[in-house]
């Protein structure tokens, strides 16, 4: 039986992190795992800081907020600076180097990828950065099945956007295969 696996997805409002959190949580449900997903955001729907926490477990999850992350995804410098020190020693750090330029701490498992630049280059828009980086995270950590993520995306975004998001997902998977050790 695995203990709680705590993931924090962080960045700024409008980057789609809460949706990414919901998609990850839904994929965990497809895997028949226990899951909680919470979020924190300012009153504004764009800008400001935003984060989504997903806790995945095989036992009952009591406290739903991630406090000691097994994995941190940071899409902005601010988010990275704010949450980096709550990452476990063995935790996985994934940062978007398009926006995160300075790392205050060298974690052991750090992945530095220019997600936003890649999304713009390969998909013509930064809009799917959330899915691209989430897929990267899933492939690196193996926390949910890749097929479950694919199904969860299809169930969570508007029908017109399933294809582009699946494409972003595949780019994320491919990148992870390249970066992965």
């Amino acid at each position, binding site marked *: 039986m695995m203990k709680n696996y705590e993931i924090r997805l962080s960045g700024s409002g409008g980057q789609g992190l809460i949706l990414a959190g919901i998609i990850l949580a839904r994929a965990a449900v497809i895997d028949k795992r226990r899951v909680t997903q919470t979020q924190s955001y300012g009153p504004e729907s764009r800008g400001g800081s935003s984060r989504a926490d997903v806790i995945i477990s095989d036992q009952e999850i009591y406290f739903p*907020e991630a406090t000691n992350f097994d994995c941190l995804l940071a899409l902005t410098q601010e988010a990275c600076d704010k949450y980096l020190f709550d990452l476990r020693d063995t935790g996985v750090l994934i940062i978007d180097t398009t926006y995160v330029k300075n790392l205050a701490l060298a974690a052991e498992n750090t992945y530095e990828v220019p997600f936003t630049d890649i999304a713009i280059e390969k998909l013509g828009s930064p809009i799917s950065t959330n899915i691209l980086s989430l897929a990267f995270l899933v492939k690196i950590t193996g926390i949910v099945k890749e097929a479950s993520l694919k199904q969860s995306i299809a169930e969570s975004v508007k029908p017109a956007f399933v294809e582009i998001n699946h494409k972003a997902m595949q780019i994320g998977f491919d990148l992870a295969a390249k970066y992965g050790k």
Partner: protein
Amino acid sequence: MNKKTTKAKTTKIEPAEKQPTKLEELQEKRERKMVLMQGNEAVAFGALDAGCNFFAGYPITPSTEIAEILALELPKRGGVFVQMEDEIASISAITGASLAGAKALTATSGPGFSLMQEGIGYAKITETPCVVVNVQRVGPSTGMPTSCAQGDMQQARWGSHGDSPAIVLYPDSVKECYELTIRAINLSEKYRTCVILLLDEVLGHMREAVRLPDMANVRVISRIKPTVPPHWYKHYDENQKYLSPLASFGEGYRYNVTGLTHDQLGFPTNKATEAADMMERLRKKITYNIRDLVQIESYKMEDAKIAIFAAGIVARAAKAAVSMARQEGIPVGLLRPLTIWPFPDDAVRKMLRDVDVVVVPELNQGQLVREIQRLVKDRSDSKLIKIQRVNGKLISPTEILRKMKEGM
């Protein structure tokens, strides 16, 4: 004459592109598989399963999802969804609808809950069933609309002027949001009063995997209808532990309803005996039925020497703290009220007898702990550890554990 306002408007239901997705998603959740669901969604589905067929509300963060889902669902099943001009109108409309026979609910948050207080008092004095869901946010005033607090616990008890009964339920999980919404509607119908469901902001927005029970396993209670002929009907009859039948408007029982102090027929009165009778009736309705109303979860309390008393999301942190402490060999338990009003006096008294230390963590400046202090005052040897916070952040399990150890 203003031509613009008098021109007939035609409304077309051309579903927006996103609508089918949402409808399909909702449909899937109705199929009672294991699905990811938000606390506010669970409230909406609980309301529907309990037979709620009338919602009037005003949008407010962080409760709005409840209104949005019911706006999609109620018209499909012949129920009414109406967005009113403010929260005062919302509580008024659900009370009116209830008197016409509806199972009616509204949902709001801090500022809206404050506006509703007068109408809540009206529903209580007129003994009209209805449910108010308050997804609490940080106050006072506009406060922090998207952040979590438990600052309305005492307001839910005493918010409306005058002495009045209060039934207030407090879930701690998405599944319990569903269950306690059904219970809130059931209790409102049974006790003919306004029942309040308090949610924490985090719970309203939190998602968990839940499976809704089959409808066959959902127990639904509806108000008792009178069987006597209209001229024998007393709107406030005092039989059956004050749980008296309720006729709806349009059923031939032409009774009067007033917010003034009234007699058993519902007519205004200034007579001291009748006024006293009415007040006693409101009080006894709760005190005579306290066992039916109070629900409490007792977690690892059997051998506990330390008890944590907490509700809602804070109780979840407390449960984690209990597990952590138990691993260190500290005998800690958790007592969690699912009904915060009427307050579970008996269970708390027992807890105070059994343990040496009580820890009360809460996201306010001391609203639950007041009640513990009310019951503890003759036991000066009991240690009380208070953990209080109002800054939009949650109290974490490690924090409870640390403060508990410090105070031991």
